[in-house]
């Protein structure tokens, strides 16, 4: 059985940042990543970031810097191709490593497993060619493969807008972006750069059906009224060989459930999330969380949360130096700043609800 001071589960932006922060403070860290590479979804993002620390840098460039830092930090051991399978009552964690079952006994744990893309109910949604927006991004940027000739994007949040733009960069014709809400959910600058290439963004529209013989050949979309009901007679056919779904994410929190963390269903945080305190510690002492598992947000906030969880986990082990305090305060300030704008209103409402549940539990 492998012993370690801190086990970080998940090698995306939150997990990497958590590992670096904790190790820099002196803690011994083991980082487990299910894939054969690190970087999570950040490694495939080609758009430029907003925020302060990383503004203007592209996602994969930020990822490269983060990985360089990770590999230059002492006291971090990395296990790739190593999915964590279970967390047991006695604090032992099991994982699969090179076709063997390995056991790990950590003193602290930071779970940063991210989120998964949602699916959507409509007729024909199981036809080959109905793919997640992230799948299109993965095909393009990890393998250099064109995902479709002509695609329909469902969802005008940041993922739907940016992946549509990326598809054009890869030579795909984007037929339209449809969005059920009456307004665009993502950043308007993303919407505008798409609109001026001639891609229609149709708010108040839903997909009714995907059709085709054995694979997607087209989609039928419909307009929605103010009560989100489809308007009869408003059907339009869109010829396409891919329908990309960008209809939100849900936290990958199975390990938290299994560990017995108290879970709360918070709509604004996109599903069940672990109840946490201001240190990002769950209701199980020694188990921390960071990133999209706390409610899907941006990579910038995931990294800040990673820093916060890493600093707190290290501090709780006795590495409670001025440096730990400084890292903690810097992460909190960063989160405060990133969430100050109107685009974070939903997340903030969700986090407030979560804190209320926490307060109710203490009372």
């Amino acid at each position: 059985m492998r012993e370690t001071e801190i086990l970080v589960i998940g090698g995306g932006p939150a997990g990497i940042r958590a590992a670096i922060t904790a190790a820099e403070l002196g803690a011994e860290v083991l980082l487990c990543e299910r894939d054969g590479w690190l970087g999570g979804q950040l490694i495939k993002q080609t758009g430029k970031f907003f925020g302060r620390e990383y503004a203007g840098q592209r996602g994969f460039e930020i990822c490269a810097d983060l990985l360089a830092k990770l590999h230059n930090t002492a006291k971090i051991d990395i296990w790739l191709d190593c999915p964590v399978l279970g967390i047991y009552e006695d604090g032992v964690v099991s994982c699969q490593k090179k076709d063997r079952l390995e056991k790990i006994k950590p003193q602290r744990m930071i779970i940063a497993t991210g989120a998964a893309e949602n699916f959507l109910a409509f007729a024909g949604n199981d036809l080959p060619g109905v793919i997640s927006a992230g799948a299109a991004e993965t095909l393009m940027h990890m393998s250099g493969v064109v995902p479709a000739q002509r695609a329909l994007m469902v969802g005008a949040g940041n993922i739907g807008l940016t992946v549509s733009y990326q598809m054009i960069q890869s030579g795909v014709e984007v037929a339209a972006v449809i969005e059920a809400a009456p307004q665009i959910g993502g950043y308007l600058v993303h919407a505008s750069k798409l609109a001026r290439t001639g891609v229609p963004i149709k708010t108040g529209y839903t997909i009714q059906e995907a059709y085709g013989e054995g694979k997607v050949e087209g989609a039928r979309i419909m307009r929605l009224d103010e009560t989100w009901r489809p308007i009869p007679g408003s059907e339009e056919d869109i010829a396409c060989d891919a329908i990309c779904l960008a209809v939100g994410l849900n936290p990958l929190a199975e390990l938290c459930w299994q560990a017995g963390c108290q879970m709360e269903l918070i709509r604004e945080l996109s599903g069940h999330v672990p109840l946490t305190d201001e240190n990002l510690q769950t209701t199980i002492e020694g188990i921390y969380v960071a990133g999209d598992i706390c409610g899907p947000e941006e990579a910038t906030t995931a990294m800040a949360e990673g820093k916060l969880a890493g600093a707190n986990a290290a501090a709780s082990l006795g590495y409670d130096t001025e440096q730990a305090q400084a890292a903690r305060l810097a992460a909190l300030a960063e989160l405060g700043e990133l969430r100050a704008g109107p685009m974070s209103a939903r997340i903030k409402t969700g986090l407030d609800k979560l804190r209320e549940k926490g307060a109710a539990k203490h009372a």
Partner: protein
Amino acid sequence: MLKQDGIPSKEELSRVLPSEQRLAQGPVVIAECFQRIPCDPCARRCPRGAFSIGEDINDLPRWDAELCDGCGDCIALCPGMAIFGVDMTYSKDQALVSLPFEFVPRPKPGQMALGLDRGGRELGWFEVADVKCGGEGNKTYVIALKAPRELAMELRQIKAGGYR
């Protein structure tokens, strides 16, 4: 309407467009930035301090017509690709419009490119005056196009490929 289709309305644009007077004085940049998001490279990187964001990084950029000399350094730096350059004094009868570009193939100076407005509608063919890389490692290019003055505030994109 911007929030419905990504295309800013005349009213929305009127909040960010420079005055006729200022346009007549020489080149400017225009930040078509309408939404509070956490972002500040324009303010941080302008060599003349023409953009300022203020305390809250989410605030909209404020542009100083006197400080901006239209150098256009910010065009390829804006992560939202929302800054454009306009020089109404470019020549006797033409303006110069500079826009950020991230598609391939890129046009070459001297070629004609199909110009598009903010909604992707075709405006006709425009001569490419300059194609400039946004700086070392920056894959955003800046394309400068000669345009009749009356289209300088419409032209915001070119169609990738099909240059002549």
